[in-house]
């Protein structure tokens, strides 16, 4: 039984203008890539990826988008919300050289994932992309991990210039980014401010190829990324409109396989991705109506 549990918000952190991390003191049995369903009983129950998960607590990182997330943003520490899960598939835990390509509010799930990968002994390169500096998140957190974190913004206002996919393309073309210097802390970190980092410098020394690429971000980002991934294994984290999250309502099925993103997803392996005709073309809304990208 996926018992629902009602929890007090233990911590709220501002990540960027419209992005907050909510932390709960509860031992959640979750694997990286999985999600929870969260509600405040005021209308709406929504899926959120787990951005951190330890033995004592777990976090989600939320972008304010519409009615539900706006209400969530008004909550305070100590307020109750109710969750169920964790649900869904999780990322394959590679022990080798991996590339994580993330964009926007979908990046934080890689924070939880990277910690698990590190424990497994993986050699991690992360591309942490956002449109612009003000929307770029989690750079400082990733910096504390023993990974190569490459920050990127579409407009170059922070880290590399270009989309996460642009950076991935470059890296994959060269396949040599295993010894990137970590970002340097140049001033005291402040919430929501990432200025205090100096992007790490490249060291072209290791030519070992990536064994696995993981992506989490807007669907069109992953759609652009996919053609670059010939010959390398990968997994993508997807979003579809979810209602039951327990695999019965069928709202989240993906064509033509009929796999349910809430059960067989949200992390889908290459083998499935290659068969999905709806990927990057359309998704279904709350009524099950097709909506084109």
């Amino acid at each position, binding site marked *: 039984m996926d018992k629902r549990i009602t929890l007090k918000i233990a911590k709220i952190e501002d990540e960027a203008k419209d992005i907050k991390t909510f932390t709960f003191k509860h031992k959640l049995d979750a694997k990286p890539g999985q999600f929870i369903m969260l509600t405040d*009983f005021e209308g*709406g*129950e929504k899926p959120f990826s787990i951005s951190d998960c330890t033995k004592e607590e777990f976090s989600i990182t939320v972008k304010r988008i519409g009615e539900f997330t706006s209400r969530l943003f008004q909550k305070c520490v100590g307020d109750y919300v*109710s969750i169920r899960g964790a649900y869904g598939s999780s990322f394959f835990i590679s022990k080798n050289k991996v590339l994580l390509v993330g964009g926007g509010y979908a990046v934080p799930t890689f924070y939880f994932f990277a910690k698990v990968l590190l424990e497994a002994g993986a050699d991690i390169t992360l591309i942490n992309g956002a449109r612009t500096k003000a929307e770029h998140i989690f750079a400082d957190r990733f910096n504390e991990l023993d990974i190569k974190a490459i920050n990127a913004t579409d407009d170059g206002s922070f880290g590399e210039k270009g989309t996460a996919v642009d950076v991935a393309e470059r890296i994959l073309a060269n396949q040599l980014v295993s010894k990137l210097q970590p970002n340097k802390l140049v001033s005291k970190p402040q919430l929501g401010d990432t200025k205090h980092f100096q992007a790490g410098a490249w060291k072209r020394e290791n030519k070992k190829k990536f064994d696995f690429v993981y992506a989490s971000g807007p669907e069109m980002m992953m759609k652009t990324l996919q053609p670059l991934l010939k010959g390398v294994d990968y997994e993508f984290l997807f979003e579809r409109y979810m209602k*039951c999250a327990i695999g019965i*309502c069928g709202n989240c099925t993906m064509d033509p396989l009929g796999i349910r993103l809430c059960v067989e997803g949200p992390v889908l392996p290459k083998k499935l991705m290659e068969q999905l005709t709806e990927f990057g073309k359309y998704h279904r809304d*709350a*009524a*099950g109506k097709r909506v084109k990208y």
Partner: protein
Amino acid sequence: MQKSLKTEFLGITITSPLVLPAGVMGMAFSGFNISIENGAGIVTSKSLTLKSRTGHKGPVVAEFEGGFLNCMGLCNPGIVDGLAEIDQFKERSDIPVIVSVFATNTKDFLELTKYVNKSQADFLELNLSCPNVFDEFGIPLAASQDEVHKIIKAVKQVSTLPVIAKLSPNVYDIVSIAKTAESAGADALCMINTVGPGMLIDTKMVNPVLFNKFGGLSGPCVKPIALKLIYQTYSAVNIPIIGMGGVTYGEDAIEMLMAGAIVIGVGTAVHYRGIEVFNKINNEILEFMDENGYKSLKDIPRLEKLEM
């Protein structure tokens, strides 16, 4: 000799007696694909309405010991888009499709029927019994013998497909309603829809768990209620019954057959046992037939009819 699960439903031969019921995995054509790949013999669409509906706000499901509450609120893409999914499914499959439709009056049911006539569907199912749109539409139609009679009679005159009436367990006397449906011309009955409805409360936040407050019960715990109603109805009518409600294992499906069902819906069990549940149950039925020396589904005996 090879045991077989082949059977007939309203003149059409099906390879498994298991039905994907309305509202379960029936939004997209791909939901049908995966169900039949995993052994379903008939698939049913989500109940379609004239206009698309986004349904109730979440939470729309809540678990308890023995089952689930749900109050999806008839979310569906509308009859036109819904039938497009079915036609797309039918491009590549012969598996029979039941199109479930929902409306609140005869006129709308007739309009829906006309759309369905033009589709690739095999059967038309009238959902007279959604328990989760009470606020919006009031007492389910299936609670009124007059309404049931009027609607079925009208639809039968227009429909080019066999008509199935889906009944609610939440009425005082389901047998009379079933008989009414039969006398109005229904070709088959589908029962039961979700039970109750019921409610669960979050004690920390002092709030109903479902945003809609109430939701219908499905899952293992409704099986005894379903079996009883199916058995009573089977004893009283001569049209075939699609039996459902809590079927999770082969044993449950056998109970449904013995109670009088001719084919068996498997809904909530898709959650409990995965989408492979259809194959699993098919195999369990075959094992049961083996152990008890039945060669075909028809050999499986039924309970003696109740005296009425």
